């Protein structure tokens, strides 16, 4: 296992933990800014991706970009699903509050006394 493979594995796991912990939107924005700037940089200087890839022991620049793409997709997926879970929870609370506030009573006159 090369140094870069270890690094990339650790960073994937770290991202997962970070996403689940932090609710800070600033962190996400900085990361997306970084991705955008990095993307532009690699487009303007295509050979730089290969240089960095050789430096960290991956070989091809395309592979480096591919790995980064996977990491950032994971980041996007986990942060979005965490957000969805929070929204779901708020929605549940709203639906519940509405239900509890509006009880309907069935047929109070027949059968048994109702308290």
């Amino acid at each position, binding site marked *: 296992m090369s140094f870069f493979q270890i690094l990339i594995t650790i960073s994937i796991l770290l991202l997962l933990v970070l996403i689940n912990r932090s609710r800070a939107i600033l962190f996400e924005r900085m990361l997306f800014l970084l991705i955008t700037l990095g993307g532009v940089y690699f487009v303007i200087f295509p050979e730089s991706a290969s240089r960095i890839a050789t430096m960290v022991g991956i070989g091809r620049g395309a592979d480096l970009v591919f790995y980064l793409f996977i990491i950032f997709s994971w980041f996007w997926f986990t942060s979005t699903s965490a957000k969805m879970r929070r929204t779901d929870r708020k*929605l549940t609370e709203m639906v519940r509050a509405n239900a509890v506030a509006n009880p309907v009573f069935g047929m109070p006159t027949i059968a048994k006394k109702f308290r």
Partner: protein
Amino acid sequence: MNEKVTRANKRTLNLSQVWIVIPAYNEEESIGIVLDQFIDKDYSILVIDDCSKDKTSEVTLKYPVTLLKHMINLGQGAALQTGFDYIVQHTNAKYVVTFDSDGQHDVEDIPKILAPLTSGQYDAALGSRFLKPGNVDGIPWIKLFTLKAGVLFTRISTGLKVTDTHNGFRAFTIETLRKIHINQNRMAHASEILTQIAQNKLGYCEVPVTIRYTEYSKKKGQSIFNSLNILWDLLFGRD
């Protein structure tokens, strides 16, 4: 403690302070049959319609019950918690029994499941279909296998020595209900309740109950594959 128990025993139980919570989703065929069984009983009934697409609410309102309606479908766990919230906030309930709306539970089992609570011995009583021999006769073997796997998983994750984890027939004291909060909106709530019983160190016992595996309940019941969804919710559904 002993003195308290004797005092509790001497007081006769006012059955209207026993609330039966029945979550229902698309049960127009069976909810009437279930509520018919309660007609000559004095229990208070609370039905939660989890945004059914059929006439569940209309059928329910022909009976002397309280009905709560979810505006959107949230799942059985959410429906139960809605019922618990209502009971804790708006009633003078002493005991709460959860009961399925598909007709697989027997009303005559309710005094049996209440007995361990009214005696003051336990905080929660859980129905088990496996404690009574010959009780699971109509059960398909694949369902039996899935249920047993669920039991094993729960025993390992909560440390509780239970024999049946996915049984909707349970009874709680009102104090217990204040300590429990279901966050699992769908079916994983069964294990979640047990987890919270373990975390709060509540006294619990199992009570043998009859489960009727009718064609209807088999059709309406959980598919085997949903057990994988439940497992996923338990492992990754925490927020």
